[in-house]
């Protein structure tokens, strides 16, 4: 553990409305999150495994795992998946992520073609990635629990703990619209109640495994277990770069006053219209 036991603070909240004059003082318990780190907290980071550098997904293995670890879709969902696969094979892929909304959880871990990096700071691990207008997962390792009713988000609420050299991450509160995708064209919204448990660990010096257990009762018949592999850029010559998905919809042009501006690239029939890049505003 990076941090010690969860810090708590009992907060007495006084509700003394001017009209009621009530003197009752109900006590509520609040967790202090993000406490200021001390020297010991920073020193503890040095004992964690070295996950520095840029990690690239093992794309060939992603494709292999879909066949090796088939997704236990519910029967009615399997029909939808079959239809999506048929469309993709026919050259008419559904653009699950063509709107440039985040791949989110668990799809980022399952199908990404883009690199990521880990940041270790006291009480938290952050995973940063390219694409989606810059991906970010915040994994709290300060001993906190999930909030009782967190707002759903694309990446959910994640808490983590170290079991030896393995980081165990528990994620809830993912938006029901977030896909469980097996490719960029085949996936189903999790539809709610998604729970993901991950075990990140090095299988060798430059190879990271994410062992996933995905529970999605609205679309799966049972918990789906699979693994995704990432390998470290061995030469350490590259950084993660900014990746703003929507940028691809715009051409870099100059306006009438000479300002550098983005100009939308019109699309027709789903494809960009080449002639459009000639025009200036």
């Amino acid at each position, binding site marked *: 553990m990076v941090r010690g036991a969860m810090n708590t603070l009992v907060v007495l909240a006084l509700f003394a409305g001017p009209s009621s004059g009530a003197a009752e003082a109900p006590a509520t318990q609040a967790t202090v999150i993000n406490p200021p780190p001390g020297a010991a907290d920073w020193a503890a980071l040095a004992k964690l495994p070295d996950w520095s550098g840029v990690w*690239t997904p093992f794309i060939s293995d992603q494709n292999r795992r879909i066949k090796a670890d088939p997704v236990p879709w519910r029967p009615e969902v399997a029909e939808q998946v079959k239809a999506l696969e048929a469309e993709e094979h026919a*050259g*008419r892929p559904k653009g699950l*992520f063509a709107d440039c909304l985040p791949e989110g959880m668990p799809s980022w871990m399952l199908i990404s*073609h883009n690199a990521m990096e880990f940041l270790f700071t006291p009480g938290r691990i952050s995973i940063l990635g390219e694409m989606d207008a810059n991906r970010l997962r915040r994994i709290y390792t300060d001993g906190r629990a999930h909030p009782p009713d967190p707002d759903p988000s694309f990446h959910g609420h994640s808490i983590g703990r170290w079991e030896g050299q393995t980081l165990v991450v528990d994620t809830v509160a993912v938006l029901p619209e977030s896909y469980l995708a097996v490719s960029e064209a085949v996936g189903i919204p999790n539809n709610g109640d998604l729970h993901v448990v991950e075990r990140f660990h090095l299988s060798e010096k430059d190879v990271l495994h994410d062992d996933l257990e995905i529970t999605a009762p609205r679309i799966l018949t049972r918990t789906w277990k699979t693994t995704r592999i990432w390998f470290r*850029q061995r030469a350490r010559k590259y950084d*993660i770069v900014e990746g703003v998905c929507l*940028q*691809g919809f715009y051409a870099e042009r100059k306006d009438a006053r000479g300002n550098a501006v983005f100009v939308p690239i019109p*699309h027709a029939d789903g494809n960009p219209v080449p002639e459009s890049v000639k025009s200036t505003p």
Partner: protein
Amino acid sequence: MSPLLRFLAFAGIVGVVLTALPADAHHSFAMFDFTRTVTIHGTVKEFQWTNPHVVLWVNVPGKDPQKPDVWWLEMTSPGNLTRGGWNRKVLNTDDKVEVDLNPLRNGNLGGALIKVKNETTGQTYSTDLRDMERPGLH
């Protein structure tokens, strides 16, 4: 018959099949026909070094002597291409290029770029992400 003419003849036969997604967005590449390779020769109209897919626009002489055909060619992201040895200046407007591509299945002038030779600089660049999976390469 040149590959381009063969392709155009093929495109004329199959007609236009519409796809329903913006091609610049983050998408599956299934709209490209990976069973066929087409080679085109032209000049760079624009090299669009942006996420999520870098796009090369190429002017290719066509039927109209006054107006070249414009092909758009998609690649992976700037981050991935950088790790494959590219940068945003390897192709510049008006550079002469030879491009190998997997064409759009719908017959439009576009495709997934496999390899581009910049005949102005003599350099060749390929786009296979899986190249990065070879042990020791990076």
